C-alpha cells in the first residue's frame, strides 16, 4: 500500500518536471533556463530515490548522488560561462 504511494509520488514529480520544462524552453533569458534546469535536476534526483525504494534496487541511490553532483557542476559551469564569457 505504501509502495503505491511512492509510485504515485514519482508520477506526480515527473509531471511537475514537465511543467518546469516550460520555463526551460520559453524562458526569456539564460538565467531563467538555468534555474529551471536546476529545479528539474532536483526533481529527478528525488524520482531516482523513489524508484530505488519501490524497485528495491539499492544501487540506484548512488546514481541519485552522482546525478545531483553532475547537476551542481553543470549549473556552476554554465553560470561561470555566462558571467565571464569564457571558461577558465
Amino acid at each position, binding site marked *: *500500500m*505504501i509502495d503505491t*504511494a*511512492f509510485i504515485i*509520488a514519482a508520477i*506526480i*514529480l515527473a509531471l*511537475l518536471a514537465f*511543467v*518546469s520544462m*516550460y*520555463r526551460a524552453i520559453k524562458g526569456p*533569458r539564460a*538565467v*531563467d533556463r*538555468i*534555474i*529551471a534546469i*536546476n*529545479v528539474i535536476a*532536483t*526533481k529527478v*534526483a*528525488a524520482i531516482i*530515490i*523513489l524508484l*530505488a*525504494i519501490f524497485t528495491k534496487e*539499492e544501487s540506484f*541511490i*548512488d546514481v*541519485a*548522488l552522482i546525478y*545531483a*553532483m553532475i547537476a*551542481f557542476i553543470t*549549473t*556552476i559551469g554554465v*553560470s561561470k560561462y*555566462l*558571467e565571464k564569457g569564457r571558461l577558465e
Partner: protein
Amino acid sequence: MDIVKDILILIFLVSGLFFYFVGAVGLIRMPNAFTRMHATTKCDTLGAGLVFIAVMIHQGFSMVSLTVLIVLIFIWLTNPTAAHYLAKIEYHRLHDRERR
C-alpha cells in the same frame, strides 16, 4: 505501530509534494528571475528534505537510509550555493553593466 509509521510516511510525502508543486507554480507564474529563484530554491530544498525524510522513515536504520541522508545533505549544501551564484551574476548584469 505499523499504521502509525505509514501515516507518518504519507504526511511527509504529501507535504514534500506540496512544496514541489508550489515551487513549480512559482517557476511558471513569477515575473522575473529573482522572484523565480525565491520560489524555487526554498521550495525545492524543503520538498527534497521532506520526501527524503519519508524514504528514511520507510527504510529505518540501515545503509540505504544513511546513503539517502548523504544525498540530502549534498542537496542542502549545493542548491543554495548555485542559487546564490546565479543571483550574483544576475544582479551584476542588471546593476553595473558599465564596468564590464
